[in-house]
C-alpha cells in the first residue's frame, strides 16, 4: 500500500511533465488539425536558448519571458516561411516536413551546445514538500501547467482569436469564406504552440536535465497523454498527462514483468482506452452526417 501511494505520487510528479507537453500538443492540434512531430525538438531548442541566456547572465525570469516571446515569433515565422507553401498539401507530406524539422533542430542543438547534460535552474524553492517524494519544483511545475491550462482554456473558449484558430484548423476553406485570414490565424496558432512548448521545455528541463535528445521520449508520452485525454480538450490533455504518469508507474510495479515492459503495458492500455473511447476520455465525439 505504501508502495502504491509512493508510486502514485511520483507518477503525478512525472505526469506533470507529460501534462505540460500535452497542452502544447493540443494547442498545435487546434491550430493545424494534426500533430507537429517536430514540436518536442522545437521546445528543446527554445529551452537551450533560455539556458544560453542564463549562462550569459540574464536573470531567470527575464530569460524565461524572453524565450517565450522569441519562441512565439519563431513559431510564427516557421509557419510563414517553411509551412505556408505546403499548408494545403497532403498530410503525409507535411509529416515528412515535420520529420525534416525534427532532424534539423536536433542536429543544430547538438552542434551548437554539445550533448553533455546541463542543469537547468528552477525558479521554485529547493527541497521537498510533505511526503518528501515531491519536490518544490514538481509542485511549481504542476502549478504553472494548471495556469497555462487556464489560459489556454480561456483563449479557446472565450476569445475571438481562439475561435478563429479552431475554425481555421477544422475547415480552412469555410473559414476563408467567413473572411478569416487563415494563414495568419494558423501562424498565430503555431506561435502560441511554440510558446507553450517553450514553457513546458523550461519546466521539464530542470527535472530531466537539458540535452538535445531530452524530448525524444517525453514527446511520445505527451502525444499519448493528449490523445488519451482528447485532442480538442485542453483539460483532458492535462488529466491525460497525469494519468499516463501514474499508469506508467503502476504498470512498472504491479504488473508481472512490468519492470521490463512498463512502456509496452502503458501503451497497450492507452490503445485499449481508445478502443472504447475513440476520441479520448474527454474528447467530443463527432458524428458525421452525410
Amino acid at each position, binding site marked *: 500500500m505504501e508502495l502504491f501511494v509512493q508510486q502514485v505520487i511520483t507518477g503525478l510528479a512525472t505526469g506533470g511533465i507529460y501534462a505540460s507537453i500535452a497542452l502544447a500538443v493540443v494547442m498545435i492540434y487546434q491550430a493545424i488539425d494534426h500533430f507537429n512531430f517536430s514540436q518536442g525538438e522545437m521546445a528543446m531548442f527554445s529551452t537551450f536558448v533560455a539556458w544560453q541566456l542564463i549562462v550569459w547572465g540574464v536573470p531567470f525570469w527575464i530569460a524565461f519571458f524572453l524565450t517565450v516571446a522569441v519562441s512565439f515569433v519563431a513559431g510564427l515565422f516557421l509557419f510563414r516561411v517553411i509551412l505556408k507553401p505546403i499548408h494545403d498539401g497532403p498530410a503525409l507530406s507535411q509529416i515528412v516536413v515535420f520529420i525534416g524539422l525534427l532532424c534539423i533542430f536536433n542536429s543544430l542543438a547538438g552542434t551548437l551546445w554539445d550533448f553533455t*547534460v546541463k*542543469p537547468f535552474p528552477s525558479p521554485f524553492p529547493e527541497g521537498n514538500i510533505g511526503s518528501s517524494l515531491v519536490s518544490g519544483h514538481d509542485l511549481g511545475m504542476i502549478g504553472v501547467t494548471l495556469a497555462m491550462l487556464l489560459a489556454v482554456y480561456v483563449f479557446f473558449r472565450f476569445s475571438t482569436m481562439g475561435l478563429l484558430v479552431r475554425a481555421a484548423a477544422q475547415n480552412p476553406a469555410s473559414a476563408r469564406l467567413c473572411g478569416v485570414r487563415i494563414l495568419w490565424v494558423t501562424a498565430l496558432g503555431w506561435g502560441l504552440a511554440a510558446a507553450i512548448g517553450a514553457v513546458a521545455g523550461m519546466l521539464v528541463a530542470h527535472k*530531466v536535465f537539458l540535452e538535445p535528445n531530452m524530448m*525524444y521520449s*517525453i514527446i511520445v508520452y505527451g502525444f499519448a497523454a493528449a490523445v488519451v485525454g482528447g485532442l480538442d480538450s485542453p483539460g483532458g490533455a492535462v488529466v491525460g498527462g497525469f494519468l499516463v504518469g501514474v499508469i506508467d508507474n503502476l504498470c512498472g510495479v504491479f504488473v508481472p514483468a512490468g519492470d521490463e515492459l512498463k*512502456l509496452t503495458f502503458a501503451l497497450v492500455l492507452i490503445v485499449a482506452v481508445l478502443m472504447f473511447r475513440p476520441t479520448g476520455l474527454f474528447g467530443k465525439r463527432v458524428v458525421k452526417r452525410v
Partner: protein
Amino acid sequence: MKRSSFAFRCPLSLVAGLGMVALASPLAAQEGVTETSIKIGNIVPYSGSASAYGNIGEAGAACFEMINDKGGINGRTVEFVTLDDSYSPPKTVEQTRKLVERERVALLFNILGTPTNSAIHEYVNQRGVPHLFVISGHQKWGQPDKYPWSMGWQPTNAAEAGVYAAYIKSNVDNPKIGVLYQNDDYGKEWYDEFRKGLGDAADDMIVAAEPYESADPSIDSQVVKLASSDANVFLNISLSKFATQSIRKADEIGWKPLHFLNSVSASVGSILEPAGLDKSEGIITAVYLKDPTDPQFADDADRKEWDAWMDKYYPEGDKTNVFNGYAYAACHTLAHVLEQAGDDLSRESIMRSAANIEDLEVPMLLPGVKINTAPDDFYPIESMQLVRFNGQTFERFGEVVSLD
C-alpha cells in the same frame, strides 16, 4: 496493358540506382597503406538517439590531426575516416563494408557499441581486418582463439563489477543491495557479471533490481522503489542523464546508501556537477582514466597537454565531456601500436603489434594503470582504482587493482 506501364517504369529506377554507384578501384598491396600514409576507419553515432557519443569520433580525428602535425607515425600521415551509423547495427554493417571495401582502410578503430560491433564481428574476422579498441566493456572482444582480429580496450564490465562485488563482500556488514540498470546489452551484462561477482550470496544480498529504458523520460519511479526496499547499498548502473537524475533523486528523497556508480558515468563535470556536487558526496567508483574535470588534475601535465590539444584541434568540443579524454588516450594507444609495427603495416603485422603491448602508459590514464596485451590476452586495460567523491574531487583509496 496494366502490367506494361509497371514494367516500363520499374527499370528506370534501377538505371537511376546504377548511376549512383561508383566503380571499383584497384587493389593495393598493403591495404590502406602507402609510403606516406595509413588509412584508419572509425564508426560512431553522429545522429540518432546515441548521438551523445558522436564526439568520440571527432575527438579521434582531432587527435590524429595533432599526431600528423607532429610528423605522423613513422613518417606516415594518418588518414582518419569516420562514419555515422546512428547506433543501428544494419547501418554499422554497411558503413564497415564501406570502410573496408571501398575506402580500403588498413584497420578499424574505436567503433562504438556492443550491438553494433556484434553485427560486424563475423565479417571482420572472416575478412581479417584489425578491429581494434572496440568501445564496449563486453567480454566478447577478448577471444583471440575464436576472433583473432577483434580487441577491446577499456576494462570489461565484468572486471569492474567484480571490483565492486569484492569490495562490498569484504567491507560492508549485512549488505542489502538495490540495483538500477539500463535495460540493454550494457546494463544487463553488467548486472549479470555483478551477480557472478557476489557468488552464491547474490540472491540474499540483492534486495531490489530495477531496470529502466533509455526511452524513459524520468527514472524517479525506479529510484523511489529502490529506496523503499531499505537497501543500504545502491549499485547505480546508469548512463549520462539517468546517472545525473538518479544521483539527485536519491538525495532528494533522503536515501543515503553506500552508492556505487559505474565508471562510465564517473565524470565530475558532466555527471556529478549537473546533479549537484553536494548531492554526489560519497559516491564510489572505479576509474582508469584521469577525469579532466576533476580539480585534482588541474595542474597535471597530461591534463594540461590535453587542454592545449582541445583548444587547438577540437575547439568546438566540450571540455566537460569525459569521452574526449577517452578518445585521446585510445588514439595514443593506437599510435603506439602502429609505431611498434614499424614499416610492415600489413594487417597481420598490425594485429601482432596490438597483441604485444608491454606496460604501455598513455596520456590521460591514471598513474599506475598500464596497458598490456599478449597473443592470448586481448584485454588491454585491466587495472582500476577505487575512488570516492568527497564533494570536490575523486579521492583515490587503496591500490590500483589488477583485475585478471
